[in-house]
């Protein structure tokens, strides 16, 4: 193999599994260390730099970082990253004075944002400090988008939501509430904007066209129903509720139903548990609240008698692998009737742009979705950008935030006459953590503690009202223990081949057998010749330059390294060193290549 280029920021970035997996590339290990030091405000601000809404995401994030966590490979469960994020948000000091400064003098460019959700708010967050005049149009009477309408308040209290939105509004965002944009052409041609960002989400809940669908008023579309609950248009539901679908929205629906009078709430899934779309923890939370989840039930018919919903018929199915079709198929085993008073449909969302004229130059493609560039977020009409669920269909909040960051870069480039493809490059800082003999500036001891369990409000109390936040958050002791579980993957084992005397000390001490000195070869061959099985192909092999004495190479399998620093401690020549990797992941306004040159 060619020697690994550790000068490329993306190599070490990839080693920090959580940061790599996070769409916004939040510097997780660093903020966990700040929490460990009690520096909650600093941890909050570091988070905010990447993900803008630490308090909201600390409660609601889809947590792509956690399944990626290295801890899942050497231990069982990941570090409770998301819960720690909430700790920083809950325990921080006032931070209003730490927000980015917004210049008095504007740069003369006007940007419109359509929709008041996380994507649009992120664009505002990035562009206001650069002097842009940013105008936001929202159809509801409050900001937040899906964070407000679809995430129930027992998961995300109103005050957390409004505080973090407030930071952005206070930067000088011009907000027009209850002002839906009804004509894109009108806004584009007559609004006087240099750029428009579309962040309207995927507002149309999928329907289930089955017999009896329209014979009763007690069949609801999940996201619309949640929205009505959020705006207090609905405050009750029947005793027996069926929720169709088993994604995260379904979990919000069934748990909301429990709080509005649903005594017997069932979630009906067509597939088995392993194929559920909902996150494992959301399933657990629902089941904890005595929601029953039934597998292998395929909806067949709404049974309505005299205009009253009596229940639903389902096919109980079993799944098998169809060789011919090359995929799983189902066959009906029996038909069952399940009585109920209300049905909530939570089977997905679609995008809808009825207010966007099809002849103004915005090209629409498959599924009637606008054609949007994956990198620049621009559609076929220069100056119009898409992000969040509006761009490529439903994702989640953290993706919406990242879309916002990227769209902001594009909008900035567009307004400043820089090519959209000229994105500011990623960089890194890398600096030694050595403090003395056997002494490092980070806690390198491996703590075998198991993942800390969340504490909840008592079930009875919890289900009494929509306003009681179910999770209590970690207390100080729980936080102190959980932070120690982080493996500090950003403290990189950095190797300098020319210093190595091939004494084997690092290889001998490594507790996970990550290291090998051997003759170089192709990756497939090398993986067979390492000290321990290196069978996780998703994790890179580090290969050094040829070593001075024997011309062999140092190989490190990044898969299981716990960053304990023992290789560097046992190295007599400091060929190995522990260096903190700090990814520079630029946002709008940070130097692009053109600006640097």
């Amino acid at each position: 193999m060619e020697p690994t280029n550790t000068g490329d920021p993306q190599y070490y970035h990839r080693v920090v599994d959580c940061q790599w997996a996070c769409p916004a590339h939040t510097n997780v290990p660093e903020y966990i260390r700040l929490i460990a030091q009690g520096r909650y405000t600093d941890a909050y601000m570091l988070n905010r730099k990447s993900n803008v809404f630490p308090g909201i995401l600390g409660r609601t994030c889809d947590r792509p970082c956690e399944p990626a966590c290295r801890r899942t490979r050497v231990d069982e469960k990941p570090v409770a990253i998301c819960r720690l994020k909430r700790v920083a948000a809950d325990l921080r000091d006032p931070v209003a004075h730490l927000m980015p400064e917004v210049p008095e003098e504007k740069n003369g460019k006007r940007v419109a944002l359509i929709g008041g959700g996380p994507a649009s708010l992120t664009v505002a967050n990035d562009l206001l400090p650069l002097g842009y005049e940013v105008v936001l149009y929202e159809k509801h009477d409050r900001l937040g988008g899906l964070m407000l309408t679809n995430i129930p308040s027992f998961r995300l209290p109103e005050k957390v939501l409004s505080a973090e939105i407030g930071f952005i509004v206070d930067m000088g965002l011009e907000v027009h509430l209850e002002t839906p944009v009804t004509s894109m052409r009108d806004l584009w041609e007559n609004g006087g904007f240099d750029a428009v960002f579309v962040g309207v989400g995927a507002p149309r809940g999928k329907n289930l066209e089955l017999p009896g669908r329209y014979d009763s008023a007690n069949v609801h579309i999940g996201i619309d129903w949640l929205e009505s609950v959020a705006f207090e248009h609905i405050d009750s539901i029947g005793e027996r509720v069926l929720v169709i679908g088993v994604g995260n929205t379904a979990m919000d629906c069934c748990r909301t139903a429990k709080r509005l009078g649903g005594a017997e709430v069932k979630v009906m899934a067509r597939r088995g548990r392993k194929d559920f779309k909902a996150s494992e923890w959301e399933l657990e939370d629902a089941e904890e609240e005595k929601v029953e989840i039934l597998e292998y039930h395929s909806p067949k018919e709404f049974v309505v008698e005299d205009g009253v919903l009596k229940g639903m018929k389902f096919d109980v199915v079993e799944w098998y692998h169809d060789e011919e079709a090359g995929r799983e198929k189902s066959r009906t085993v029996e038909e069952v009737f399940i009585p109920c008073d209300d049905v909530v449909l939570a089977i997905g969302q679609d995008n809808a742009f009825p207010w966007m004229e099809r002849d103004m130059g915005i090209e629409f493609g498959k599924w009637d979705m606008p054609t949007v560039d994956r990198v620049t977020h621009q559609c076929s009409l220069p100056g119009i950008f898409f992000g969040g669920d509006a761009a490529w269909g439903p994702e989640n909040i953290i993706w919406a935030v990242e879309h916002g960051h990227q769209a902001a870069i594009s909008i900035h480039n567009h307004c400043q006459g820089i090519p959209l493809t000229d994105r500011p490059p990623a960089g890194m800082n890398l600096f030694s953590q050595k403090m003395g003999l056997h002494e490092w500036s980070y806690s390198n001891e491996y703590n075998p503690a198991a993942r800390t369990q969340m504490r909840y409000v008592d079930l009875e109390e919890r289900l009494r009202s929509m306003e009681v936040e179910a999770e209590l958050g970690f207390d100080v002791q729980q936080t102190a223990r959980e932070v120690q579980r982080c493996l500090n993957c950003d403290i990189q084992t950095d190797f300098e081949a020319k210093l190595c005397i091939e004494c084997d000390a690092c290889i001998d001490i490594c507790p996970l057998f990550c290291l090998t000195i051997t003759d170089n070869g192709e990756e497939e061959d090398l993986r067979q010749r390492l000290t321990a099985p290196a069978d996780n192909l998703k994790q890179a092999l580090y290969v050094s330059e040829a070593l001075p004495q024997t011309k062999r190479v140092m190989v490190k399998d990044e898969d299981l390294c716990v960053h304990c620093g023992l290789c560097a401690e046992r190295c007599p020549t400091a060929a190995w060193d522990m260096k903190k990797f700090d990814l520079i992941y630029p946002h709008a306004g940070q130097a692009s290549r053109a600006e640097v040159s």
Partner: protein
Amino acid sequence: MSPSARPVARHPRMRTNALGLTPRDYEGAMSTLCAGCGHDSVTAALIQAFYQMDVEPHRVAKLSGIGCSSKTPTYFMSQAHGFNSVHGRMPSIAAGANAANRDLLFVGISGDGDSLSIGLGQFCHAIRRNVNMLYVLENNGVYALTKGQFSASADVGTRSKKGEVNRHGPIDPVNLALSLGATFVARSFSGDKRQLVPLLKAGLAHKGFAFIDVISPCVTFNDHVGSTKSYAHTRTHAHEVVETDFVQLKSRITADYEGGSTQAVTMHDGSVVRFSKVSEDYDPRDRGKVLRYLREVRNRGEVATGLLYLEESYEDLHEFENTVERPLVELEYETLCPGSKALAELQKEWW
């Protein structure tokens, strides 16, 4: 701060041996030797050898004397028996323990100071008695615990860290062992586990005194330019006389012989030592030829490595001394101490 122990995290898919153990189950305490010490590599090679041979740790007795080298037994197999003796006296303790319990595997770890200066006589007599043990001499050419003075194995002309030149001729432990009639004589290098691990395994399987001289550089006092026991010097001057492969009894069926340059010796327990790349004028079973060959290599300024001499038909300590088969610890009190009547009977022999 430095952790007091290695992280308990384990490789989830590490191969286990026949006992279901991984190499980590053969670990000892954290080493307090200097970072980069050759001795720590010897420790790691020993761990691999025991792990690969499916040795139950409680069947092993680790013995040592005094010196950096003699700290080594602390750093592997915490569950094994251990004895840290007076300087240079480890061979006596080993001989006594050996006579009392032939069921244990004995591993003595010594250094050039411990074996070639203060304990030279002990070392020689352990060879004469053919004590059934693996004797590892971690040889770095300096007294490192006392800040790096030349030891008895330092070569003529080698330079100390401060630049002094050594003028005393060295005691070559390999030469000495061969002259005294040792039945298993090898030399290796701490920086070459590919060679060292099979040698350690063969040494453990050998009946009688298995001696391995391991060049184990002192990274603090003897790893500079001008030293003949540095990593770099050893790498450039090592001359692998024979490539040795140890085939344990359990997997012997798969052994294939490449013919020609390959010679094989069957050990008393049925395991096989295979020699390959042997030059034509070399025979690891002919003591005289070996001595002559080693002298030539030495005169060229090279360090001969490999399993240099092996003899499998001989008597060991137990046969010489007619020791009891069962370990003393397992004998009933009446057998161990048969009483005054038996003593009187015994004494009649000399009346």
